[in-house]
């Protein structure tokens, strides 16, 4: 780590006239392994060492990054950034940061089995084991793409307000894409597992069982699936589906920078306005939070990339729009404090408002109770295609593993039930929430250049009343 370079950069920017300066140093090592149709396609490792800076002068924001860890180069970069902000100040958005406590701290996510102590052979063996189990099922799986990756990132954040945070977070990720064929028809699932922590989680996941369960369910659906009913019915959505719903329409529209319009040309804006705080968006059963502090989560952090202490944010409380995700800039704009939602994926990206782990809070029911009270419905365990418009109203989820519910009991599989619904309709239709929590991993896209940032999304099973499935 070149901590002294970051400290130097912050001071040098002030000396050159900056009103605020911040430096973020990143050191990441990572490994990845790909198994494609039983063949070890490739393995690889990457290394990142770099410095990203934010400088504010005359209320104008300049971001600069370099991986030349060289004092003279950094001096020049700072001077250029200052010059550019000076010129941009004629047309700048006024940047003010909310007043926040400054912390000096360090933290590390512990690994029970250190990623560096596990050789490449052992890592790829996990994928070969999964491949073997897939072949043993005798199911026709024409394409099998499995990848395992891990990384260890150490970040040092320092700013002219006195912040000094040193954080080390290891992460593990398993990704798969499986295509099952039956009678000339195919079905496909892409999913991902991710956590912060060591290799112990890769072992705990039991990757061979994950993929075998997946292909068995896909085959069952292809073999025995019937078309879903056309009439109005109820849906019990399982945690994977609830997770993506909450991420897309319970998380994204609450990002304050979208609400203000800063992402207008890219990820879009939000149907939610500041004036909608305190108004109803869903039934009383709906509670959605974003919480970076979940231990060993994929979106874990204790301090955000502006040095603000992380905390749980209640985005929707008993169906009421309660709080937005804020960084220091949006917080100042809205006259409040930041809630620690500023993240950047790497040293060479500006930190912006992001989710961390977004999920619906559990209720008191069991999943069986939710199903038990459905006369005609669909149990949607997971999904394939999905999307949502850029204001986060009109969304679609196509069920993958899904079953018919009749008179309170799960029956045979149904093919491709489609939920195509608006956000207020979706959250208003929730009449009961179960207590079976699950969290799933994804890489959320936002920003330009793109920042695909690790997050968890999740929740318990929920019941949606009176839904008409899409075509």
């Amino acid at each position: 780590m070149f901590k002294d370079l970051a400290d130097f950069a912050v001071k040098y920017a002030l000396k050159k006239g900056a009103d605020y300066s911040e430096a973020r140093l990143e050191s990441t090592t990572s490994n990845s392994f790909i198994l494609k149709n039983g063949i070890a396609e490739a393995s690889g490792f990457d290394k990142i060492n770099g410095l990203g800076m934010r400088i504010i002068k005359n209320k104008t924001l300049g971001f600069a990054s370099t991986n030349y860890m060289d004092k003279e180069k950094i001096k020049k970069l700072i001077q250029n950034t200052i010059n550019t902000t000076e010129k941009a100040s004629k047309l700048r958005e006024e940047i003010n940061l909310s007043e926040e406590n400054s912390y000096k701290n360090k933290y590390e996510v512990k690994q029970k089995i250190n990623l560096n102590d596990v050789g490449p052979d052992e890592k790829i063996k996990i994928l070969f084991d999964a491949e073997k189990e897939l072949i043993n099922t005798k199911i026709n799986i024409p394409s099998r793409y499995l990848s395992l990756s891990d990384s260890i990132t150490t970040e040092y954040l320092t700013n002219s307000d006195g912040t000094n945070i040193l954080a080390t977070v290891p992460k593990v990720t398993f990704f798969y894409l499986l295509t099952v064929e039956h009678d000339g028809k195919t079905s496909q699932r892409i999913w991902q597992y991710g956590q912060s922590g060591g290799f112990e989680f890769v072992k705990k996941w039991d990757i061979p069982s994950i993929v075998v369960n997946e292909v068995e369910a896909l085959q069952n659906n292809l073999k025995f699936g019937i078309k879903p009913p056309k009439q109005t019915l109820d849906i019990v959505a399982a945690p994977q589906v609830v997770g993506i719903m909450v991420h897309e329409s319970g998380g994204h529209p609450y990002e304050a920078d979208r609400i203000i319009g800063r992402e207008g040309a890219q990820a879009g804006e939000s149907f939610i306005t500041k004036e909608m705080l305190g108004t109803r968006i869903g039934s009383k059963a709906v509670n959605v939070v974003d919480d970076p502090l979940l231990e060993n989560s994929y979106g874990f952090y204790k301090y955000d990339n502006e040095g603000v202490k992380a905390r749980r944010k209640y985005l929707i409380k008993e169906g009421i729009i309660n709080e937005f995700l804020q960084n220091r800039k949006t917080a100042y704009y809205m006259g409040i404090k930041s809630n620690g939602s500023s993240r950047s994926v790497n040293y060479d990206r500006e930190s912006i408002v992001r989710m961390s782990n977004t999920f619906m809070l559990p209720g008191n029911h069991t999943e069986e109770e939710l199903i038990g009270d459905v006369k005609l419905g669909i149990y949607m365990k997971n999904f394939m295609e999905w999307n949502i418009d850029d204001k986060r109203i009109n969304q679609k989820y196509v069920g993958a593993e899904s079953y018919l519910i009749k008179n309170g009991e799960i029956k045979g599989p149904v093919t491709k039930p489609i939920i195509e619904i608006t956000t207020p309709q979706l959250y208003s239709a929730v009449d009961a929430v179960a207590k079976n929590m699950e969290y799933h991993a994804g890489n959320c896209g936002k920003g330009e250049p793109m920042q695909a940032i690790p997050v968890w999304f999740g929740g318990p099973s929920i019941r949606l009343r009176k839904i008409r499935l899409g075509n």
Partner: protein
Amino acid sequence: MDPEEISNHVLNKLLKAGADDVIVSVSKQESSQIKFSNNLINATKTWENIDLGVFMALKKKIVLTNIKELSLSAADDVVNKLLKFVKSASPNKEYAGIANGSFSYKEVEEGYDKKIVSLGNNTIDYVEKAINKALETGAKRTAGVFENSVANISLLTSNGIKASDKGTHSYFSIRAFNDKYASGQKTGFSRMIDLLDVEKLAEEAALISKQSLNPEHGKFGKFDVVFEPLPFANIIDNLGGAMSAFSVEAGLSCLKDMIGKQVANEKITIIDDGTLKNGFASSKFDAEGAPTQRNIMIDKGILKTYLHNTSTAKRFNTKTTANAGLLSPEPTNLIVNKGNFSKQELFEQVKNGLYITNVWYTRFQNYNTGDFSTIPRDGIFMIKNGKIGQPIKGIRISENILTLLKNVAAVGKMPERVIGWEVETPVVTPAVLVKDVSITRPLD
């Protein structure tokens, strides 16, 4: 040590240690961005990067690395780690080598612009002019980015290839708003700054925005759709992914087993051209050092080839198309050949249809079948008896990509150069009329 010496050092050490194939690349990039929204500059951004990339095959074991550091000690670390890593790696039985030959390279025409190199803070003036143009045209708000970069790459391979290239890139994206639900977006790119008219893009975005005020909820059903170049480029970008031999093998392609077959209407010809004059992804050579070329991918609707590197080409009994990607071949610039119709003439062929100016969040239900949906955003308009009418909102295209391409009824004659937040592959395409596009929407 300079990049060339370091590359030689890495190559020689790996060959001595028994590597069969080695590719060492060093790329340097300096870039800048002005990000704006609500008619104001949110941030100025500057990047300086150097990357050392190494590909090694040893007894068919493939290891790749990329490190953001260039020094002799870092290079030695890489070599040691590569050799340690490869010991416990597993062989890729299907691997079939890298490009071999003594090649001569052609410079990319209009690929390097000294004006971009010395652009500096003048980028701010371009943004100011564009914002002003959009506002003059009647937009209320604008958001976007203006990006410029200068890049150098040098490549050294164990097959004796030694090559270098340099390029400049300029990209502009603007979204104009007249209301929360009235907007228009345009993007453009160029390798030469004077060939990128940011004010024209701003004006066009503002015109779409102004026209799209007071949208009504759209209806579901089958509609004839005139796609602007921007949304059609989004679809072609996704098709480009399916053209890669890697996608075909990995189960990510609806073009599997389709070579020689009709995959699009005969009005559609698509070319991948890595040599394209002023092409955003044009370069002298691909990631193996093979000279880039012009590949006819779809000829009058018939799929002619996949995109290949040397290794995938051998597996498919053909020659590389110079689209390496060391693991996965990638498209360069995708060109949809122009047709005969002005945009007005495309509209005139529609009795009851839609005019779609942008889409986003394209997602596949199944990459094998090509079933997908995507959401129109910004100006969406009804077309009635050849005339653009009522703006609409709240709809989704739920289609199959091959069906959509087979239903192309007419191709415009004015190509545009598109790249954007969701269009990662540069696409040159005119507007296109597609019959019977399936439109869905949530119920009221």
